[in-house]
């Protein structure tokens, strides 16, 4: 492979506002690039077939299941992971999750929080029905759903009251 072919194959994108690139099979799931290449291990592997939501991240603000998203979909775009919500726990979703001690085991909650953050970007003051519609594909084997719903409402209040601390 000559240099120009190699440059064509390299996928460049932003992750949490930093430049990133990937030079391998473009069908590689974004999840493995984040975890294995970029050491962003906050995003979790759950089912591997987009059924559980543990691997949820944002691409240009829209949530995607990174376990089934080819890294090529991120080319030229901006990826946000749980580490990128904020580095100082100031994001309203992080604050609400801490305040209400939402997780039990916690494994699914980076995905839960990323979906909640995407929802609040679209609907700043969601109803219970809005929350159910958005969050019903994020599974929690510990059954923390009641706290998740309360936390989304609390995050909406925090966001309305001034957003980040």
């Amino acid at each position, binding site marked *: 492979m000559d240099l120009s072919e190699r440059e064509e194959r390299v996928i460049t994108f932003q992750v949490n506002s930093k430049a990133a690139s990937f030079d391998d099979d473009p069908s590689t799931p974004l999840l493995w690039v984040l975890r294995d290449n970029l050491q962003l291990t906050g995003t979790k592997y759950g089912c591997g077939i*987009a*059924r559980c939501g543990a691997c949820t991240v944002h691409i240009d603000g*829209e949530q995607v299941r990174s376990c089934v998203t080819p890294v090529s979909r991120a080319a030229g775009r901006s990826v946000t992971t749980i580490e990128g919500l904020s580095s100082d726990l100031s994001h309203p979703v992080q604050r609400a999750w801490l305040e209400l001690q939402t997780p039990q085991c916690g494994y699914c909650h980076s995905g839960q929080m990323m979906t909640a953050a995407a929802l609040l970007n679209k609907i700043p003051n969601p109803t219970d029905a809005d929350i159910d519609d958005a969050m019903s594909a994020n599974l929690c084997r510990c059954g923390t759903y009641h706290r998740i719903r309360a936390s989304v409402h609390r995050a909406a209040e925090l966001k309305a009251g001034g957003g980040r601390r």
Partner: protein
Amino acid sequence: MIRLLFPSMLTAAAAFAQTAQMSSFEAFQKAATVIRHPRCLNCHIPGDQPLVGLNGDGHPMLVKRGTDGQGAPGLRCSTCHQETNGELPHSPPGTKGWQLPTPQNRLAWAGLDDQKLCRGILNVLKKGGQPRDKIADYVNSDPRVLWAWDPGPGREKPSMDRLEFVELIRTWIEKGASCAP
């Protein structure tokens, strides 16, 4: 290879010759067996929850149509569905433009007899100000229609060859787009 191809080419040629003899509505009726394929009807629904599989089960995770046909805020079709089929069993199918019809134009075909289905499709074209032959281009090129013949692992294809289906739609339109037996 020639041995393998020859019988299928003969079958296709015979199907095309048969199509040429059909009336407009006869061609539509045969094409309707594809339009009514359970997997097509999974998204051409009157309600707001898409269906999945050949049995028309409700889409897992209470997925909704949304205001633009692309899902609810926080759970978009593109959250899970990519522009290609997932390779693993039970992983999401995908192609470009994976979404439901919009709530304003639901294109709900389930339960319609041949005549109502025929009129329904023509009405959609009329409402959109589209020429009738647009439907032939649509079934020949729209990624979601093409996907029916490339549905990914574990999913069966329609029983009819894709080009035969396109030819039937073309015959229906070219012979007058009739909805009368």
